[in-house]
């Protein structure tokens, strides 16, 4: 017995001392997160992953643009039940159509950024920093600013409406799984956005790299952010930094339409890549959502331009931007071609920007927008400057009068932005910021249905102007229960 005991003890010791290697089975398709970022090239892979995650269907790949477009009055639906029409009819609540995909995907991206930033800090603290690494740090900070800017506009009231109200939880480092953070105010979120952008700018390269953020993308985001904050001077400075950089140039009237059939156009300041068998959404792509039903097999034509938009674009029937529009499905019923379908994301010839109608890059920020921001920011103080900027875009409607210091109006700038950035995810956010009321083209739905979730005309006092915090979030994070957006609270 004694011998056996000794043998057992020896066996036990042998087991304990030599088996840690045997028991350490590492996965082969994933790496340990704690040690996966140690060099600049590791950081590059994470930045690429981040861009890929940002172009997911829940974010820039589709739903975020659709949010900004279909709620803004420039779009209408012909039939309910095709997809995302709940956004159009404002059928969202915390527990039914919560659109939690925005919340989860954007915070998932923020986690990637925070993790990358922490690791870059570690590398730098170990004395192994480099300019390349700083560049990635700048890109990560800029991306974080952009995501918070998008999040705070989805879930918080407009900055110029009530910036002391609740924004979103402000997370700047990786969290423990048990964390239950609460919301910061809109002002606090904007403050962080500005901090991130201004910290990042000096770190970033000025070369244009397709698919990634650079210094000018940072400036362009600053222009957007400052405009939302009502800081026109800063918005103008940032927009001008991009305009005068010489890195980007406006499309001429002759090549405006064809610019939608090529990637990395001369206006592209930030363009997210969508390639075949990567983030390609196929039949659920942004392109398919805007095509006429049946143009391509399985294209259902979810959204079409509203009558209001078509009338606006028709201020000049020779407007070059008609070139990206196609007649919509109403032709079957009426025999009249109504040009409500849009090919910005499928390419003029349905071949996208590189041969596929669905794997098409998303142009997140274009130079035209910088001109329009500059015009809007200059307008209250310098009509001449505003006219100069607006003129460059408005000339795409050759028959409309040229803006001058005397004839320019805010409405002209607003109309121009609607025409130029149609289907680019801007309209709703702009109109909410401008405190306009939005009237929906509900009579376009055929056969008619009663829309019970909103009135035909809304403005930003309507509680559904912003999204609810998803019920799933509140279930897992009860600290947010008392912070639900007003109106959605149980």
């Amino acid at each position, binding site marked *: 017995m004694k011998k056996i005991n000794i043998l057992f003890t020896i066996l036990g010791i042998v087991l304990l001392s030599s088996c840690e290697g045997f028991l350490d089975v590492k996965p082969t398709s994933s790496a340990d*997160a704690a040690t996966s970022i140690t060099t600049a090239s590791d950081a590059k892979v994470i930045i690429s992953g981040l861009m890929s995650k940002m172009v997911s269907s829940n974010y820039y790949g589709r739903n975020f643009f659709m949010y900004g477009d279909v709620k803004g009055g420039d779009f209408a639906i012909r039939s309910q039940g095709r997809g995302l029409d709940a956004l159009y009819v404002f059928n969202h609540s915390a527990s039914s159509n919560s659109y939690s995909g925005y919340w989860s995907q954007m915070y998932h991206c923020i986690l990637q950024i925070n993790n990358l930033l922490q690791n870059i800090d570690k590398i730098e603290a170990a004395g192994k920093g480099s300019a390349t690494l700083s560049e990635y740090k700048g890109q990560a900070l800029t991306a974080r600013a952009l995501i918070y800017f998008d999040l705070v506009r989805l879930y918080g009231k407009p900055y110029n409406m009530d910036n002391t109200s609740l924004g979103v939880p402000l997370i700047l480092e990786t969290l423990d799984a048990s964390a239950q953070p609460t919301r910061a105010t809109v002002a606090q979120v904007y403050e962080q956005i500005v901090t991130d952008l201004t910290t990042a700018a000096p770190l970033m390269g000025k070369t244009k790299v397709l698919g990634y953020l650079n210094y000018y993308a940072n400036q362009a985001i600053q222009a957007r952010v400052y405009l939302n904050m009502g800081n026109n001077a800063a918005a103008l400075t940032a927009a001008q930094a991009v305009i005068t950089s010489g890195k980007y140039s406006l499309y001429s009237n002759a090549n405006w339409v064809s610019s939608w059939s090529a990637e990395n156009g001369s206006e592209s300041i930030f363009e997210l890549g969508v390639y075949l068998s990567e983030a390609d959404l196929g039949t659920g792509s942004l392109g398919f959502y805007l095509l006429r039903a049946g143009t391509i097999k399985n294209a259902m034509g979810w959204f079409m331009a509203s009558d209001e938009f078509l009338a606006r674009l028709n201020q000049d029937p020779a407007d070059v931007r008609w070139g990206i529009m196609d007649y919509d499905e109403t032709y079957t019923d009426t025999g009249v071609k109504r040009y409500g379908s849009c090919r910005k994301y499928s390419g003029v010839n349905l071949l996208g920007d590189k041969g596929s109608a669905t794997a098409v890059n998303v142009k997140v920020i274009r130079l035209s927008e910088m001109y329009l921001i500059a015009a809007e920011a200059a307008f209250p103080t310098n009509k001449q400057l505003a006219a100069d900027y607006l003129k460059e875009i408005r000339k795409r409607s050759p028959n409309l009068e040229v803006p001058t210091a005397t004839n320019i109006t805010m409405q002209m700038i607003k109309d121009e932005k609607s025409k130029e950035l149609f289907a680019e995810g801007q309209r709703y956010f702009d109109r909410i910021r401008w405190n306009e009321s939005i009237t929906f083209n509900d009579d376009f739905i055929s056969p008619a249905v009663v829309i019970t979730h909103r009135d035909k005309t809304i403005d930003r006092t309507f509680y559904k102007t912003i999204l609810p915090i998803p019920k799933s979030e509140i279930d897992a994070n009860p600290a947010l229960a008392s912070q639900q957006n007003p109106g959605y609270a149980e």
Partner: protein
Amino acid sequence: MLPLSPTFTYDPLLWGLYWPTDYLTGDPWTARYGSYAYNPVYYNNEWENSSKMLKVSANETLTVKLLPELVLKSVFSYDNTNTMDHLYYSALHFNGSSTSGAVHEMTTNETKLVSSTTLNYNKVFADKHTLGILVGWEAEDNRTYFHRSSGTNLPTSALHTVSTAGKLDASGYNWGSTMMSALSRLEYNYLNKYYFSASMRRDGSSRLGETTRWGNFWSVAGSWKINSEKFMENVDYISNLRLRASYGVNGTLPSSLNGWRSLTSYNNNYMQTPGGGVSTIADANLSWETSYTSNIALEFGLFDQRLTGSVEYYNRTSKDLLQDVPISLVTGFGTTLKNIGEIRNRGVEIELNGDIIRNKTITWSAGLTASTVKSTVEKLYGGQDIIWYDPTGGDARAKYIYREGESTLALYGLEWAGVEDETGKNLWYLNDDDATPDLTVNGRPATYSYSKAKETIIGNIHPKLFGGIHTDVKWNNFTAGLNFTYKIGGYTYDGAGKDVTDDGYYWERIMSKDQYENRWTPENKTASLPMRAAIDMEDVNQKSSRHMHKADFLRLKTINVGYNLPKNLISKINVSNVRVYFNGSNLWTMAAYDVYDPEVNEYGTRGWETPICKTYTFGVEFTF
């Protein structure tokens, strides 16, 4: 398939009924009424799959007799399963249409190596004391290698081969786990009357991190064969009476291989360059789930084992329960694997078997099993309730809450108060003292609007009693048997109801017969389901007691009838036995709620998975 002709006309102003396939034209699919219905018959010819499996197994045992009573035994076993899967979609199939056909070849190779060495000591002392001691160690290595090669853009529909494809794609990786154990066991009995055993083991697994991967587990057990005692000698009618009890600690590992390790994965390729990101945030201190089980049982046999049975009580407390639980999405993820708390299961299991008739020509026996289980959450680390979802199917079909003192399968949601007779509207119990009720239902505050009502525990999945009843008859060459299963108490949750009993909106969607018959109409004002109207399906989408149904059922699980042909008939053809039989399963069911199959998964939910089939088997069995 029979060509059906539409015998109804539909009002073009309304949406028509859902039309699943275009039987008339055989068209692959039709966008009629905005639906993507397609014809599965057509598509069945446009794809194929096959799977080939090869299993190799080797078991080498080395036994060394060191002493007559001391044996060293070393077992080395090797199991290898190689599976080759082939999957093809033609260019006409919707899965292959965008790529001009697709073909995939996949190889999965699973290897399991176990090396176990034990030292066994067995001896009987003085013809009374039987002693057995075992000590040993064991190492186990499981690894799976996966490889896939795919081709798209196929040149011809005749060749379903990757190498002919215009575009190639591949993937390959492997995963696995290892485990090491030191084990020991002691067994002792005195005159086969008193039994005692004890065991102790130490296990280490790759599924847990360095500081927590080793666990110590042990057990003790004893039994007493009462009818071997002197004082029972005169009690003839008791043929067996045994009391046994045990207490033990055992461990459960996470099913996830890397649940403790935060990972960076690389499946976010971007513009043809690799892209990656954090894919899990894990708890590095994740540890074994440890269960402390005690049980006590009495086994008995009466009248020369004509009536046998047992009664057992068990109590199992599981600490550090391992579960994927929802976490704040602000962390970047929706769930994580955690040791969340402590649960307790206890219950009584009764088994009774008897021969009602037992003679040379006929045997008729019957038996019964009955179990009860009470399963409660005892403690949650941090004390905060955890709301979680049925993981089955990935569609969050049912919602539960872990709350201290409540059931481990406590359904959580809104409490539906049925339908208002006058209006056909949904009613909800408020369950919120602060809110102002719209009306009262059964004397309780209620509302028309689900968003005013508060969620509460609406029911418990665990039944009060469950088990089986069986009876077998053997008469000459005939045999017959019936097996019933039953469940009394508890609820099931209908995860598919929101799709087939919605209150309108998706006009082109399928409507269940149950809804068709039980929906509110001006003619049917006492209906159980609300009026269908062109509203959005918010109400039906709520996790609520509307989708919760009583779980009670009795089912004829199997029935079998057989006849062995007389020997004199078959001996001429050199066959030792011929049996003609019929087996049926699930042929008859009685259920408190019979709209769907009451036999549900461990979470008590019913979704879109294929229900259990009724099967009929007729056969002839030859024994040579």
